[in-house]
C-alpha cells in the first residue's frame, strides 16, 4: 500500500533490492545506503550484480580496477546491506541483496515494532475504558 512513485534509472532487480532495504532498516542504515550509492562505480557494480552474481575478480576486470580497489567498493556495498558475499574456495562471489533469513528476521522485527507501538497506544485507550467503567459503577451506587 505504500507504493513509491516513479524512481530512477536502474534495473528492476536493483531497485527492488534498494527498496526492500529501505523498508527494512532504519534511517541510519538509509544514510549508509545513500553513501554507498553516491559512487558511480558502486552503482555500476549494483547494476552488474542485478544481471548476474559475480566474483570480485570479475568485477575488478569489468570496471578496470585493481582487486584491492574493487574489494573496498564491495565492502562498502556489503556494509550498507545492498550486497552479500560468500567465499567458496578461493573465490568470493557477490550477489545483490541480503540473505533471505536476515530479511525475514528484519521484517518480523519491523512488524513487531509496528504492533508494539499500536499496543502501547491501545494500553492508554483501555486504561481510559477502565477508569470510565469504574466511575460509572460508582455513580450507579
Amino acid at each position, binding site marked *: *500500500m*505504500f507504493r*513509491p*512513485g516513479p*524512481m*530512477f*534509472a*536502474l534495473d528492476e532487480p536493483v531497485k*527492488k533490492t*534498494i*527498496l*526492500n532495504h*529501505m*523498508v*527494512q532498516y532504519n*534511517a541510519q542504515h*538509509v544514510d549508509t*545506503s*545513500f553513501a554507498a*550509492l*553516491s559512487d558511480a562505480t558502486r*552503482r555500476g557494480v549494483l547494476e552488474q550484480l542485478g544481471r548476474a552474481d559475480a566474483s570480485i575478480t570479475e568485477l575488478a576486470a569489468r570496471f578496470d580496477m585493481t582487486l584491492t580497489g574493487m574489494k573496498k567498493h564491495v565492502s562498502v556495498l556489503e556494509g550498507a546491506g545492498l550486497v552479500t558475499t560468500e567465499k567458496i574456495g578461493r573465490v568470493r562471489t557477490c550477489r545483490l541483496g541480503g540473505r533471505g533469513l536476515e*530479511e*525475514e528476521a528484519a*521484517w*518480523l*522485527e*519491523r*512488524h*513487531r*515494532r*509496528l*504492533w*508494539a*507501538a*499500536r*499496543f*502501547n*497506544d*491501545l*494500553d*492508554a*485507550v*483501555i*486504561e481510559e*475504558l*477502565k477508569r470510565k*467503567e469504574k466511575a460509572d459503577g460508582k455513580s450507579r451506587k
Partner: protein
Amino acid sequence: MENRASEVSGMPRETVTDRRSEREVVVTRTFDAPARLVFEAWTTPELLMKWWTPKSFGITFISCEADVRPGGTYRFVMGHPDFDQPMAFVGRYLEVDPPRRLVWTNEESEDGSVTTLTLEERDGMTHLVLRDLYSSKAALDEAMTSGAIGAYPEQFNALDGLLETLR
C-alpha cells in the same frame, strides 16, 4: 506501576512476532484488562482511531468505518504528511464473537491475509493472539518483501530526491 502489576501475574507485556508456518505470522501481547474492554477497543471506530495508527509513525486517520458483524465491511483511510494520496485499508468481518474472537479479511492488496484475533482472559488479564494467515507461502513471502507494513515514505522521498541528482 502497571508494568509491575503484569509482572506479578507472570505475563509480561512484551509484543512478540513469530513466523508460525510457511504462510502464517503471529503477534502476541498481554493486556492488563478484561477481554471485553480489549474487544471493545478493537470494534469501536472512535476507539480504533485512538490507537490503530501509532503516533510515533506519523500516520493519522482520515476516516474509520467499521460495520462489526459477520459480513460487515470496514474501511480505514489514513494519511501521512509525505503522501499526496490517502491510503485505504479495506476488508470484511468473517466472524464476530465478543469478547473472544474476531476474524476479518485484508483486501487492499491482492493475496491479502485473513486475520484472526483471539482474546483469552485469565485473572483479569487478557492474552491477545493475532494470526495473519496468507493463501500461500508465496503470498506471505511477497508481503514480507513488498514492505506493505510500516514502510517509511519519507525515506522513499529522500531516495527519490537523491537519485534524481545522480541521474
